[in-house]
């Protein structure tokens, strides 16, 4: 299905809005900065926005649709990132592709990408319907993103069941939008509760961070710069772990920030300095 070397990784969640696309963009940049050629594929044909997050919307000429219909070559459709040339985006075609796209089509595209890149990250649509199944058909591994919320965890559980039945392995977990303070006060599901329920290896935690919203709106993923944002650190660590490096997991109970750190952070957000 794919070449022996490339890792084809599906990024999915079941529930919408938990941070699949944000993770795909940031992980793509972070892996590219580790020196790997990386392709990110937007498999969310209905509601595509990976191009927006990467700030590449206005550079799209061809899409996966033209590649499949062979009206252009793959190289022509790939959009190389401005600041991080190791990263390329294959944009989603128009939403009407959903009507005819088959799992075989996705496998064909991903196989072509796998010949040229070390990592192929596939941004899956929310839900467990055909769009998700198409995307999953082309991947060997998967990362399930979830938030410390009951509904997100429940949907992740359902998705994990489907991934297992599709023989995708390994399936790893990323816990996004973690608020250490709320976890400490037991107002939020704890990391242990979630990993115990989902029974997956935890690939990483990403702390809740307002800068994610800023970076999304600007179309500049956080991992692109060297900002000391807690979320960016989480994304970078995930990339390093995915790459085989042994990076210790963050302990949310030690992340309860003191007054000074919070003030500094506030200052950083308001002024945009350092």
């Amino acid at each position, binding site marked *: 299905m794919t070449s022996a070397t490339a890792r084809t990784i599906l990024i999915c969640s079941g529930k919408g809005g938990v941070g699949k696309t944000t993770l795909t963009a940031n992980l793509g940049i972070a892996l590219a900065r580790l020196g790997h050629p990386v392709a990110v594929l937007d498999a969310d044909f209905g509601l595509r926005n990976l191009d927006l997050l990467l700030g590449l919307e206005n550079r799209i000429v061809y899409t996966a649709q033209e590649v499949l219909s062979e009206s252009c070559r793959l190289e022509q459709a790939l959009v190389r990132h401005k600041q991080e040339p190791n990263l390329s985006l294959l944009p989603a075609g128009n939403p009407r592709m959903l009507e005819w796209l088959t799992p075989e089509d996705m496998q064909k595209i991903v196989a072509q990408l796998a010949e040229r890149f070390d990592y192929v990250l596939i941004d899956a649509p929310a839900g467990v319907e055909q769009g998700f199944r198409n995307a999953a058909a082309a991947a060997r591994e998967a990362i399930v993103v979830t938030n410390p919320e009951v509904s997100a965890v*429940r949907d992740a*559980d*359902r998705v994990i*069941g489907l991934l297992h039945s*599709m023989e995708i392995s390994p399936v790893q977990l990323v816990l996004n939008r973690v608020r250490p303070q709320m976890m400490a006060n037991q107002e939020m599901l704890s990391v242990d509760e979630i990993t115990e329920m989902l029974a997956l290896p935890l690939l990483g935690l990403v702390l809740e961070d307002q800068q994610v919203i800023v970076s999304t709106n600007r179309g500049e993923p956080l991992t692109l710069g060297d900002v000391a944002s807690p979320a960016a650190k989480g994304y970078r660590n995930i990339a390093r772990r995915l790459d085989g490096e042994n990076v210790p997991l963050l302990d949310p109970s030690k992340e309860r920030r003191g007054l000074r750190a919070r003030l500094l952070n506030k200052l950083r957000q308001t002024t945009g300095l350092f």
Partner: protein
Amino acid sequence: MAAALIPAPDPRLPHLLRLPPARGAASLLEEVRQALGEQETVGPLRGELILLAGDWRLPLPELRAVQALLEPLGLALSRVCSELPETRVAAAALGLIAEAPAQATAASAGEGEPGLRVHRGTLRSGEHLQGEGSLLLLGDLNPGARISAVGDILVWGRLRGVAHAGCQGDEAARIVALQLRPLQLRIADAVARGPQERPAPGLAEQARLVDGVIRIDPAEPVCPPLERPMRLRTSLGLNLPRRPGLP
């Protein structure tokens, strides 16, 4: 061996459509058409049909195609019995009852009371495991998942979903789990919400029906007898509170 359509002996029972082993068989639709073609000479059939899919890998479109072939004959596909989890997932996605073979053969052959069925692996949200006898789940039952059995339910893991023991009315059925934290428990016709508080760690618990109310106690240190005669209730719904809180 070709595909065979086995008409039901009794109009209340479903018909069976058995596929041959996938290896060496013709294409799915050819096999099904052939089996149905033979039937046309006997006369029209109507009613429910169980597909015994064996080791066929049947994704959603193929199952839909089979349904389309059956529909003109007045046959409604109600249940798919397959060895492959993919086929069962596809069947479940179509809203059909999906099950593993051991269960269906025991049920269709009517070999008296089937014994214990073992399922290995965690049941995740959206999954539903059913058993004709008693069920032993080696793994967790997650919230959103369901398990139901005609006999007892034994969970070697954490029970956090919905469990229904004695689902055909056996009031002596019990539910045992290493950790019992259910959303809801049902035994025969009684229903109870799970307790709010967490159970004491390291204590296997069991739920039984005591005077029409579901009670949770520490598990008895004996294995429930599998060959227990079914104790079916004679009068329905008497003295049975529909939603008693747990003690």
